[in-house]
């Protein structure tokens, strides 16, 4: 199987390449982009922005809160200990524990969402180029159906393409 990608030295060129590929009828999902920094100012950098992150965080918080409530009140009832004339279940103080666990839940939820939705930890894809970490931006297509079109698109749009490669 052959894949094909171009390395572009500026976001602008990368953007052209992406547009070119789209024009060449390459479906959105098959276009791979890699960069060593977020490129949110550019169209290609802000693909699939929608995420459940905030909702998951809230959900995690809720779970943490419930956990906190049960941990405190249930254990306090399990062996009723009188101290300082306080009630057995001391909601005032338990609120503190509940709060901490809520926050912990929210934090964990966001991290888990991140790892899951960003597919981390994962393996490096079929093509990856260490040049990226020098600032290059990679635009490529894994096993395109119409190789020529893709190649043409990449070349046409990118005067700055230094390398073109076939992997199989």
């Amino acid at each position: 199987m052959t894949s094909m990608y171009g390395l572009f030295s500026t976001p602008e060129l990368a953007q052209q390449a992406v547009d070119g590929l789209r024009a060449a009828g390459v479906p959105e999902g098959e276009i791979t982009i890699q960069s060593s920094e977020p490129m949110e100012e550019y169209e290609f950098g802000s693909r699939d922005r929608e995420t459940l992150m905030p909702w998951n965080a809230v959900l995690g918080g809720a779970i943490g809160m419930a956990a906190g409530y049960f941990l405190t009140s249930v254990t306090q009832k399990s062996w009723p200990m009188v101290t300082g004339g306080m009630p057995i279940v001391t909601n005032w103080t338990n609120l503190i524990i509940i709060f901490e666990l809520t926050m912990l839940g929210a934090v964990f939820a966001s991290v888990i969402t991140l790892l899951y939705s960003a597919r981390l930890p994962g393996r490096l894809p079929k093509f990856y180029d260490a040049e990226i970490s020098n600032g290059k931006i990679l635009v490529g297509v894994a096993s395109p159906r119409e190789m020529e079109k893709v190649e043409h698109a990449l070349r046409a749009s990118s005067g700055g393409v230094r390398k073109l490669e076939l992997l199989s």
Partner: protein
Amino acid sequence: MTRKSDSSLTDDLLRPVFETSTKFYVTAAVLAVIVAAGFGTWFYQIYWGMGVTGDNWPVFWGLHETNFVFWIGISHAGTLISAILRIVNATWRRPVTRCAEVITAFALMIGAMFPLVHLGRPWLAWWLIPYPSERLLWPNYRSPLVWDFFAINTYLLSSLLFLALPAIPDFALIRDRTTGWRNWLYGKLSLGWQGTPRQWHRLESAMHMMALAIIPIAISVHTIVSFDFSMAVVPMWHSTIFGPYFVVGAIFSGIAALNIVMAIVRRMLHLEKYLQPIHFRNLGKLMLAMSLLWGYFVFNERLVTWYGNTPHEMAALWSTQLGRYSPMFWTMIFCNFILPFPLLTIRKLRSITATVIASCGVVIGMWLERFLIIVPSLSYKGTSYSWGTYLPRWPEIVIFGASFAAMALLYLLFSKFIPIISIWEMKVGEHSNIKVAAQVQESEAAGELV
């Protein structure tokens, strides 16, 4: 030209990771020895008993507890600051955040040691962990010490994640530039990061969520530390302002610590280009604000006590104003207020050195503040027959010193394995600065860049 700047920046920031001077080994060795001495002393204390400290009846808490509060306070530099800065999206934060977050992580670890160090029977410390044990006994959720346990652990976990996540892309960076064991190690650490827009976006939104969560956590942590004292009916402890008072104090000392660390890092790792006077100036302004806030709280605390005029509180109060503890009190006022004020306000004086001097003062002053909160109150509580006094003995002092060495050592090692400034965030910064230029020169850039 973007690339040039990129690669040179990357090189600068990665240099400490790849090049190791003998100076590094020497410093690390010296620090390690001091830390070892600290642990030795701790085991000595465990072996013989708390009696080797200066604690006594009725002053059952002394230096260990002071250090606990002090280090937890220092930990409020990093994560909290960087979280705030992230949320308000202050662009100048970029070089600062990681320096700061690292302080949090390590200061917390060290601070969290002291409750163990101060225990009479530390080998039973695990009884604080809530799990269904054969003892059928759960921790007492009414005890501020248990609140501490939860709060500190929450804060520590989230701070570590907050530090670790944005490091992943940098790991990837190092992975790509290395071979052999480093490549393998950082390959694992980078979790196969490729830098697709999706990943970048998820990372940033996760950081955003955590920033939101971490601010209340950090505030709760030091509030709860203050509860350790304000929950007890002890003169000058049983006060409602302790929560905010401690939080402000914490941030205050935290920023000071950050300034000092940044200055050292800047010098040692030759990052003058990245940690610039503006950073110190901004942090200086923040610190000045805190200094004022802190002074306001101290005034409140003292005035209310004096006006209330209850015998025990007055005894404790006067011991700090004019009595046996007064030299420490007035030193504190000088360090936290009189010293930083001119250094941070008068434009002529403002400079990195000035900021660092002020910061040193603040760190000392805030340590004294913690001591003055704990010891005098205990000396003057209860029936006047049972009043007492306190003098630290050598084991406490050695452990105190070792805690600083531990901080330095951990920081040193950290900067050896991870770039102390977040590279990708720097790049983002650099580019947003030169973006305009970039667009102008787009075409030629397209052409002749080789």
